[in-house]
């Protein structure tokens, strides 16, 4: 483009700005990009609806998820019981709402904890290097040598079945990939000039790595957290389906869906498993949409 052409172009842009057509954009660029992605917005909406419905379950249904009502066993959906009732007359809608609390807590909670552990270790050891880094890398390699489901089941058989144990197990199986990713980012970021400048000012190591470098790695970390959440929610459902997840006395999405193992229920009582299966799928889909949108909006290699 010639000099004159370039000047004309700038003139046009300036004219548009003066006319107030090109509003200077405000807010976070990545957030704006996320909100302009229709799938990510749909994901955020579905995610919010299911999350809020679970949190405010007592306001949405008068029924107790654990109340057995032998007068209303295996009822099909009705105005009173939106998703019908199960074999002991418990309201399936209430169970799905309250079950969401536990399932989301396990999924999101474990993903966040795994991120704290993985990112915490990865940021420090990746920045410092040396023997600490070697040890952390070897330990993560040990955890990542197992196929995920096998490691989860192995740990279930070692530490036993309970809600807390399940979260511990998920953190143990999930921290490795967070650690790997953070470490890889730290290895490249620690060579940046601003880091050398901070070092020469004598800023403490911990402060450099957590306050000054880590924020630059937040994009991929957030993407990883969302995708891990999706994975853990599916894993909880799968484990509970096998009867090896959260103890059956606690309603979770997986435990509710567990009844579909019985072929008679599968054939005759669709309301006991279809709605909850759809809710799990929709929730995981929404989390995946958000994760994908976050990746597109934060990863500079995917721009354009």
């Amino acid at each position, binding site marked *: 483009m010639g000099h004159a052409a370039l000047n004309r172009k700038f003139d046009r842009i300036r004219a548009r700005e003066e006319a107030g057509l090109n509003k200077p954009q405000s807010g976070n660029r990545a957030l704006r990009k996320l909100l302009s992605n229709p799938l990510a917005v749909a994901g955020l909406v579905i995610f919010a609806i299911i999350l809020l419905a679970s949190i405010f379950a007592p306001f949405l249904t008068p029924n107790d998820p654990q109340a057995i009502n032998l007068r209303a066993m295996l009822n099909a959906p009705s105005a009173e019981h939106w998703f019908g009732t199960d074999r002991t007359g418990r309201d399936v809608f209430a169970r799905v709402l309250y079950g969401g609390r536990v399932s989301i807590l396990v999924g999101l909670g474990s993903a966040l904890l795994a991120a704290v552990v993985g990112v915490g270790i990865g940021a420090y050891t990746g920045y410092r290097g040396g023997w600490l880094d070697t040890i952390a890398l070897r330990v993560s390699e040990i955890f990542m040598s197992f196929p995920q489901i096998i490691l989860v089941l192995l740990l279930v058989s070692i530490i036993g079945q309970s809600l807390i144990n399940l979260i511990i197990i998920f953190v143990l199986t999930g921290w490795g990939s967070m650690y790997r990713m953070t470490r890889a980012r730290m290895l490249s970021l620690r060579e940046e000039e601003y880091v050398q400048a901070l070092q020469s000012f004598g800023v403490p190591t911990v402060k450099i790595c957590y306050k000054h470098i880590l924020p630059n790695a937040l994009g991929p970390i957030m993407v990883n957290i969302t995708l891990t959440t999706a994975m853990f929610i599916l894993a909880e459902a799968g484990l509970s*389906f096998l009867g090896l997840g959260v103890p059956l006395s606690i309603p979770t999405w997986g435990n509710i*869906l567990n009844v579909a193992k019985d*072929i008679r229920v*599968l054939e005759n009582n669709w309301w006991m498993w279809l709605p909850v299966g759809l809710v799990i799928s929709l929730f995981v*889909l929404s989390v995946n949409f958000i994760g994908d949108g976050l990746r597109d909006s934060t990863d500079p290699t995917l721009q354009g």
Partner: protein
Amino acid sequence: MLTFVIRRLLVTIPMLLVISFLVYLGLELTPGDAVSHMIDPESASRMSEEEFAALREALGLNKSFIQRYGIWLTNVVQGNFGHSLSGGVAISTIVFDRLPATLELSVFALVFSTIFGCILGTISALHRGSTTDSSLTVFGMIGVSIPEFFFGLVAILIFALHFDWLPVGGRLLPGYTSYFDHLPNIILPGLVLSMMMTAGVMRYSRSAMLDSLSREFIRTARSKGLPDWRINLVHGFRVALTPVVVLIGFRLPTLIGGSVIIEEVFQWPGIGSEFIEAVRGADYPLVMFIALLSVFAVLMASLIVDVLTALIDPRVRLN
């Protein structure tokens, strides 16, 4: 090349040893020992302390933990994998009984998902930004969002219970004798597992294809006046295949573990459903062996992937 493989093997073996030790230690920490699993509570209440001690000694349980680990390891190296706690069947027998079923299912799914995923991914990349592309992407995401057992159950409901086209599951029903008699049995679990795996391959091959299509040699090929199909398939797809091969390599461990949950849903008598049984029944020797077998599969698969990438890309070898 040979030194590269040997060097990688030298890293893999200590890794396996450390993992086997940790798993042994972990299972050691669980409550109860082999004796408490072998004897039902009723007869245990009638046994004296001396009898217990004698039994423990006979089984070598009075030896220290390190000694027992040493004995176990020597046995495994010599090909003696021990016995399952329930029924006392040799673990090697169980594995040899179950492995063919798992291999059958996983090879089916691996082949099907690779072919299907590559085709869909390539179509998606060639029509980037079109409705086809975005709907395929959305379908792929739906595919990875549905719990696999839920998908399996719906498939059973529709194809086996409602239309009665295919058997629900199982592998060799009584009365079936030849290998091909159970072909209908593998279709449902095989297709469900393939569908779940296709989404990943599709996504991967799409981005690999996009990457390859943006390279200079594509422009060169175009400037030579080659027909589009030749540019896309011969020049573009070939280069895109490399990362896809890597992805498939990392999927190889499913050949051992199978999809644990799919095997359970379809009552497929493979290693995966055996593992679940072992976990449920606290059959620790079996749990340990299958877990280590799957670790072995993962480590071997990553070795193969490394060798393949080294073959393709000489820069890796020199490092």
